[in-house]
């Protein structure tokens, strides 16, 4: 009986289980029309509402840029002709070092390299005597530093030199004075100038002497001519006389000589006779001593010799007269030739004297010129002996002070050429703008600068927008943008920062709704759907500036107050959401 009841219970349980399974199966597969309709019907609208706001709308251009210091420029040191070789760098500044006017950029072989403001680079040694714009900017720099360079006229004079010396000494450096070569050069010039002055004096003396020499030559020539003329005239006169005598058949000269000879012979004979008589008288006197006799003999012999000599001289004189008579014509010709020769010689002597005078004058001019030239050179060389600024001891930069951006040279390297890069202290930002945003940005616009990761905020101003895309390192689809940093609480150099440039803004707070709240009616008007006491109503509005997801709206007929809720969309049920 009990087993029967248990079987009945099992059967009932099985039946219940089968019925439950069948119900479960059927329930999972059978749907009522209402269920189907509910499942397939559109979900009940669930509007997403947001409040109307009063806010300032600003349409911004947002871009990015890297902060750098402005006016990056390389610094080069020019070689100096005053120094035999370029110095070796002994000290260099570190990055970010500030260098003002008159400051020392670096030192090379124990000499400073100063910085002055100027447009022109230091391309030559600035030494006394120079004139130029580079001297002018040196003088201006000295004046700014408080060292009076005298007239600021672009001429390196003694006052400029003195100011340079004061400037160097004020910085603890010995000014760059004359070099050994310069001093040696001056000494050599002085010697040469002395020699030239002596030569000049000698030449002038020669010129002075040449005048009388010419006069003397003239006088000598005239005298010689006159003498020769006189001689010639004498000869001609003698010839004339000879010619007259010849025409008379005898030569007076010859006859004269003959007569002289006869007369002399007669006198000699008489003397001889007298001696003979005296001898005879002595010889015949027995008292006469032998010596007296010998003397008388000697006198007689002398008388005889004298008579012979006179005779011979007479004959010779006659012969000479006869020969002279015969040569008179030739002598006349000779005298004429001598006269012509004397004239020529005189003229030659005068010409030579004149030439000598010209030569002396030329020499004097040359000597004077050389002396003057040497005097000028000496003056110039002396003027350059003052303190100057070698080209490798000064660097002119356009704007000061500067900041050392990068040192490219090394200690121990040659101290000329490019040594470093400097910038000014004005922060600037290199950035770029897309093609569509570039026309909206104008120079002078304010810029909000920030870097969220660093918590940095600063302000700036648009400095420039490139006129063409693709310049200054940006690609061809962007315009270069430069922003000047006006104020910054921290050093931004090297940072990438976000730049927000308001290009258009409402004048103060306006009524604004999210852009998605705005819809277009069939008649073309803009409208927003506003909830009023649980009822959704359309309000026609006039849209204004749109920015940052909001749009300015002005209701046309109705009122729209901040805080009112507007529809921005409809929420769909979770089971139909894509996520």
């Amino acid at each position: 009986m009990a087993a029967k009841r248990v079987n009945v219970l099992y059967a009932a349980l099985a039946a219940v289980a089968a019925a439950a399974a069948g119900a479960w199966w059927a329930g999972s597969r059978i749907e009522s029309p209402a269920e189907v309709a509910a499942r397939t019907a559109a979900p009940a609208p669930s509007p997403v509402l947001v409040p109307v706001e009063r806010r300032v709308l600003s349409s911004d251009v947002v871009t990015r840029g890297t902060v750098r210091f402005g006016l990056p420029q390389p610094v080069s040191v020019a070689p100096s002709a005053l120094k035999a070789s370029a110095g070796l760098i002994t000290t260099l500044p570190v990055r970010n070092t500030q260098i003002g006017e008159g400051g020392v950029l670096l030192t090379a072989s124990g000499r400073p390299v100063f910085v002055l403001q100027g447009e022109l680079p230091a391309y030559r040694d600035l030494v006394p005597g120079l004139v130029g714009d580079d001297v002018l900017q040196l003088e201006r720099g000295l004046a700014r530093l408080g060292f009076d360079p005298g007239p600021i006229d672009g001429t390196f004079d003694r006052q400029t030199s003195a100011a340079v010396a004061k400037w160097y000494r004020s910085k603890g450096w010995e000014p760059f004075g004359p070099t050994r070569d310069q001093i040696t050069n001056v000494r050599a010039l002085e010697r040469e100038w002395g020699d030239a002055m002596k030569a000049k004096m000698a030449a002038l003396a020669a010129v002075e002497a040449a005048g009388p020499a010419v006069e003397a030559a003239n006088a000598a020539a005239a005298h010689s001519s006159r003498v020769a003329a006189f001689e010639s005239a004498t000869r001609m006169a003698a010839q004339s006389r000879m010619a007259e005598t010849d025409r008379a058949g005898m030569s007076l000269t010859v006859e004269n000589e003959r007569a002289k000879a006869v007369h002399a012979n007669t006198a000699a004979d008489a003397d001889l006779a007298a001696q003979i008589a005296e001898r005879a008288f002595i010889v015949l006197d027995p008292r006469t001593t032998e010596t007296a006799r010998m003397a008388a003999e000697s006198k007689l012999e002398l008388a005889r010799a004298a008579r012979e000599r006179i005779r011979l001289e007479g004959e010779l004189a006659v012969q000479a007269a006869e020969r002279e008579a015969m040569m008179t014509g030739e002598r006349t010709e000779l005298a004429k030739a001598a006269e012509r020769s004397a004239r020529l010689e005189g003229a030659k002597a005068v010409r030579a004297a004149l030439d000598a005078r010209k030569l002396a004058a030329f020499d004097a001019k040359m000597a004077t010129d050389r002396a003057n030239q040497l005097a000028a050179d000496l003056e110039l060389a002396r003027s350059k002996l003052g303190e100057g600024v070698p080209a490798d001891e000064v660097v002119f930069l356009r704007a000061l002070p500067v900041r050392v951006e990068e040192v490219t040279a090394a200690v121990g390297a040659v101290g000329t050429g490019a040594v470093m890069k400097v910038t000014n202290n004005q922060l600037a930002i290199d950035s770029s703008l897309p093609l569509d945003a570039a026309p909206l940005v104008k120079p002078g616009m304010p810029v909000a600068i920030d870097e969220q990761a660093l918590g940095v905020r600063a302000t700036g101003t648009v400095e420039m927008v490139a006129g063409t895309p693709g310049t200054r390192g940006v690609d061809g689809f962007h315009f270069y943008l430069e922003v000047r940093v006006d104020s910054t609480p921290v050093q931004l150099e090297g940072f990438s920062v976000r730049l927000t440039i308001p290009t258009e803004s409402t004048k103060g707070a306006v009524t604004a709704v999210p852009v998605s709240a705005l819809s277009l009616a069939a008649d073309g008007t803009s409208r927003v759907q506003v909830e009023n006491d649980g009822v959704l109503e359309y309000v026609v509005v006039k849209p204004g500036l749109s920015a940052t997801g909001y749009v300015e709206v002005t209701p046309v007929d109705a009122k729209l107050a901040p805080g009112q809720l507007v529809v921005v969309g409809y929420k769909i049920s979770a089971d139909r959401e894509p996520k």
Partner: protein
Amino acid sequence: MRGMLSAGVTAILLISSAAGAQAPSGLGTEEFGMSPRQLVQAIERVEELIAKCMRDEGFQYIAADYNTVRAGMTADKKLPGLSEEEFISRHGFGVSTMYTGQAPQLATGYSPAKVGLGERNVQAFKNLSPADQVAYNRALLGENTGTTFAVALETENLSQCGGCTRKAIEQIFKPEQLKATFYNPQDALINNDPRMKAALRQYAAEMRKSGFEYNHPDEVEPDVRARLAALTNGGTLPVEKMSAEQRANLRKLQDYERRVALTTFKLQDELLGPIEERIQQELFSRKVQ
């Protein structure tokens, strides 16, 4: 009768068990358990949000399309001319062996991250100044510049993402999906299978024999990444700036990566792969791609 009752109850239990082994409804076959459609939508929405965020940061970012991101995902552990096994034997996971310390956009060789960003974004990045490049990647990727969206999707680890990528992911993915501990439901199902559990025990034993302390293949690559991050200050130390000691440590890590990658790959291929395939067939009636 009792036998009949037992058989009936057993049949009911078997039916219930079979029903429990079925994949839950809504579980997709793609990363993070998404369906292919969901994955495409998620990628496109994330990329749009990244682009907007980058615009707000002042950078230009072109939202990468699905194909680009997918190309970045599939570029993982692949090089032209090399099979996956050859790649792994030569380069391991390509984590420390391909490490340069450079931004992924500047990579000249293997870089799934670069592929996933898209060529236009890479070119835009190259046009930036060095400082802007750093800021760009910080804005896009945060601290971990090697983990792009594509890489994070491929490794199914969104926790390493930062910057605009993370902001965008946070808006599309569920909070639990952003955690490092998140496990793909599909993988969880497979790992809970007794057959897989047994296989994983065998895997751990084989790894220990080879000198590696890993209980699951999914632990290996993250561990290598963590070791690399520790060695390179989170991937910010370029190789050329490493000290001799750091380079020696990197070389050790690269050797380790090659060995462990090859070992785990072989075990996965021979031991875990067939079992996983069987379980997937039972769950999804097909092998998951």
